[in-house]
């Protein structure tokens, strides 16, 4: 792929100079332009739809006619991308701040850590009301609430990734930028952003995959008396559930599958393949990501000319301001004493803020609730915790052997990996109705039978991480174990499991985090008038949201956050430290 890249690259440069002679588009240009044109038309159409007044929603409620699905799918997708855009903006603003300023870092990083643990769907309750009040009478408020919910599922880990990249820039490249006296602006665009791009792109794509779940969940929101159904696949699904229309549910699943497949091929893979150019390992990797879409774009000749022009524009953009900022006079050195005083003031301010925040949260909750309510929430928390643990264990027992089997066979892995990623992206809540129908019909115990729903969507993270781990397991180690005839159980214990341990931990951590979120929509499920409820914190929060009882919601969300953060620190961090200390393969 490296050779192909270089030849494509040189072809690109050759064609820029050739544009003078032959700017006629070839057939690839035509395909790409049609696609882009369609995209713009879709965006305009969608934007127009979003601006309709709220009352319009009641007049034109979400219809279950499958012919509406493409339009709904389009709107759902647009919401995703809008949220992604905001997340990117947030990342570019907040991460450099955290990386460059120690004081900001002390606040921002823990904040991000905690925000990552707060269940997104818990946020939704408040943001819906907030945004609706911001734009009374217009659909825009509801749209923004949905977009914001998705934003909260993407922004934090993208910011973390960017921040981490900024902190691990290779020292020699930093020295080059200091040595040639690059302005801060130029340094950002020439060094920091490109270096961070591979991590950022991967996190972006993973976030989007996870985001489909929240899109679907956030399009049909009911907070107390306020009930919104925005036109989209999620709303379609919710209406189908209300009307007990299993056929419509089937259509929704199909539509979602098509959307995810398109998004994967047309966006995920090309962008990841493009970002490969920024990887700093200066040895061509064995398996560089490939994408037929990226190849298509590279072959489109006219498009290459445009991208060449954009490239030169970008060069000018990233360099031009250099002249101006070079003349900035040296900032006078602040005396270290003044610095320390400022440190003190800052720390005290933070402390005061923390105390005030804790006091206001507690007093808010305490206004209507008391210890019994806390006990109820915490008990629910433990129940959900056990549920998540048991299910992760069960999922691991099933998928780890399969993952290892697949991972050790490269040809098979190549075909299965994308499928596993697709499954991880597919919003499992679209499939819930099938299970719910089953439970309702056969009068099964919801506490037991609703539980698998929690890991339905998240178990795939375990699978594809284990596949990845097994596929990079050093071949000399497996050869040695074959030669020494290491037998089955010993092989698992001494060879394979330690080898894939770091990958497994990553997968299980992601799965567990996603499961907590899923519990809010999985522990309370409905089919028409039938309402199924399991015991647990997810159910607690879901019911509180439905009742519009904000105090309970705050309590529930708070308790869940505490659980997630505690499990994170106590369990996952330790496992990561263990993996790092003893199980690294380098």
């Amino acid at each position, binding site marked *: 792929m490296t050779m192909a890249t270089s030849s494509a690259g*040189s072809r690109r440069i050759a064609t820029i100079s050739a544009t003078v002679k032959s700017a006629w588009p070839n057939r690839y240009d035509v395909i790409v332009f049609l696609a882009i044109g369609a995209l713009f038309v879709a965006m305009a159409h969608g934007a127009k739809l979003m601006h309709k007044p709220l009352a319009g929603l009641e007049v034109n409620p979400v219809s279950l006619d499958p012919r509406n699905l493409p339009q709904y799918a389009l709107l759902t997708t647009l919401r995703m991308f809008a949220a992604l855009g905001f997340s990117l903006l947030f990342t570019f603003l907040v991460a450099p701040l955290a990386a460059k300023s120690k004081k900001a870092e002390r606040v921002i990083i823990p904040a991000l850590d905690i925000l990552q643990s707060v269940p997104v769907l818990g946020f939704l309750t408040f943001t819906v009301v907030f945004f609706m009040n911001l734009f009374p009478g217009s659909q825009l408020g509801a749209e923004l609430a949905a977009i914001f919910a998705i934003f909260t599922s993407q922004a934090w880990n993208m910011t973390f990734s960017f921040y981490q990249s900024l902190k691990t820039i290779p020292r020699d490249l930093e020295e080059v930028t200091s040595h040639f006296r690059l302005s801060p602006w130029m340094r950002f665009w020439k060094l920091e952003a490109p270096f961070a791009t591979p991590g950022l792109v991967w996190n972006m794509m993973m976030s989007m995959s996870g985001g489909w779940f929240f899109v679907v969940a956030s399009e049909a929101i009911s907070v107390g008396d306020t009930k919104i159904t925005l036109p989209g696949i999620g709303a379609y699904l919710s209406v189908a559930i209300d009307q007990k229309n299993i056929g419509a549910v089937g259509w929704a699943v199909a539509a979602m599958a098509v959307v995810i497949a398109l998004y994967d091929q047309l966006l995920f893979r090309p962008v990841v393949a493009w970002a490969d150019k920024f990887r700093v390992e200066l040895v061509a990797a064995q398996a560089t990501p490939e994408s037929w879409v990226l190849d298509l774009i590279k072959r489109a000749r006219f498009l290459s000319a445009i991208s060449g022009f954009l490239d030169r524009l970008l060069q000018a953009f990233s*360099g031009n301001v250099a002249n101006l900022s070079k003349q900035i006079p040296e900032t006078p050195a602040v005396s270290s004493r003044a610095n320390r005083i400022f440190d003190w003031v800052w720390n005290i301010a933070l402390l005061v803020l923390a105390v005030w925040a804790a006091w206001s949260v507690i007093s808010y909750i305490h206004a209507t609730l008391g210890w019994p309510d806390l006990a109820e929430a915490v008990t629910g928390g433990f129940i959900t915790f056990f549920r998540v643990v048991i299910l992760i264990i069960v999922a691991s027992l099933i998928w780890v052997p399969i993952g290892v089997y697949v991972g050790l066979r490269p040809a098979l892995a190549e075909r299965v990996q994308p499928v596993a990623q697709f499954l991880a992206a597919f919003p499992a809540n679209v499939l819930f109705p099938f299970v719910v129908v089953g439970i309702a019909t056969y009068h099964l115990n919801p506490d037991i039978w609703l539980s698998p729903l929690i890991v339905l969507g998240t178990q795939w993270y375990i699978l594809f991480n284990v596949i990845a781990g097994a596929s990079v397991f050093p071949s000399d180690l497996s050869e040695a174990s074959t030669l020494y005839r290491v037998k089955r159980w010993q092989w698992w214990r001494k060879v394979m499991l330690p080898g894939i341990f770091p990958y497994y931990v990553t997968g299980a951590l992601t799965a567990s985090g996603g499961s907590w979120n899923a519990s809010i929509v999985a522990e309370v499920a409905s089919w028409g008038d039938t309402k199924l409820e399991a015991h647990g914190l997810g159910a607690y929060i879901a019911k509180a949201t439905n009742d519009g009882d904000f105090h309970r919601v705050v309590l529930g969300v708070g308790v869940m956050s505490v659980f997630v953060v505690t499990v994170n620190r106590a369990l996952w961090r330790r496992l990561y430290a263990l993996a790092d200390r003893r199980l690294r393969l380098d």
Partner: protein
Amino acid sequence: MGAVAARTDGRQALVSVKHVRHFYKRGTSSNLLVLDNVDLSLYDNEIVALLGRSGSGKSTLLRIVSGLMPPSEGQVDIDGHVVKGPADGLAMVFQSFALFPWLTVLENVELGLQAQGVPPEERRKRALGAIDLIGLDGFETAYPKELSGGMRQRVGLARALVVNPKLLLMDEPFSALDVLTAETLRTDLLDLWCEGRMPIRAILLVTHNIEEAVLMSDRILVFSSNPGRVIAEIKVGLPQPRNRVDPAFRALVDDIYARMTAKSTATPAKEGLFPGTGISMSLPQVSTNTLAGLLETLAEPPFNGKADLPLLAERTQMDVDELFHAAETLQLLRFVELAEGDLKLNDAGRRFAGAGTDERKALFAQHLMTYVPLAAHIKHILEERSSHRAPIIRFQDELEDSMTEADAETTLHTVINWARYAEVLAFDGETGMISLDNPAEN
């Protein structure tokens, strides 16, 4: 085609380093002195090499000269102006090439010009000129991933030359390359220099390769380590192109080896070759395999117990750092004598070389306990305790009183590994406990 001899009389120095001392701040305890009272001057038309082992602060000095970091004390002048930050008219070539992987060769070379705000057409022209000069014509649109190490360093060189610097700073530019590529690049660079095709006035080269220094430079400044101090200044008067087998060349190389292994007269008598005394002697990481191998090599023909260091280096393919560390360790353990660029096996060393495994271990154990205070100290502490065990942290904390964290860790692990070989101590990596021998018993 000889290099123009530098005239130092009356001319203003291009670079003037005055009384530079530099510390690394070390948390709570005293600071680590890296450079001690360095004075040097660089004049037009000369290549000066800063030669020393790792830890001699020469890369730090280079960064201080370039303005990337300010010295703790002292000052650096370039062309009479005090250096207060990354200075104008300098360019640096890095050991690791430091190319941006997402920029093409052309874009990498243009980087410095773009930072100066040079307009695009002129930038491109000058960059293409520089690329042509160093012989990479045709690779303008290649990415660093596609280039070999030697080609990448050429790009680094082009990037440095294109900004028309007065002074070229080179930080071990050839040490990341294989022997043949390095040789090619060296000769190419010397050709450009001697023919005057580079617009630079002087080159400051940092290296730990003694032959490279003698091959390339007009003056060599030899540095000691811990802290870095100029211990010798050697003028190399040989005409270019220089020949490695020329007797005068070899004499110079020998002389430098001798100087680098001799105890410096400037240092107080109690300081040996390892910084610190007693248990706070900071030891380098040398494996017992290396030590045994070196003793065996010394004992065999052609050396037969006495070896000229440069020849030994060539035979064992070890670079200066590894060889000196091993030789000095063997001297510490009283298996060899190190003097005037020669390594001589003594009786104990001869016995070791000829013995079988068990006898070697016993002999090694004896010397280790006698001559390495830290090993004896650890054993003493363990014997005092009734459980005969102690956590490694205990010793690490003790050592950190007199050396840096990293040094403490290295020294401790080195001594423990030696003691394990000698079957005097046992160490459990999982629990971090040191105990008296025989792990099976614990």
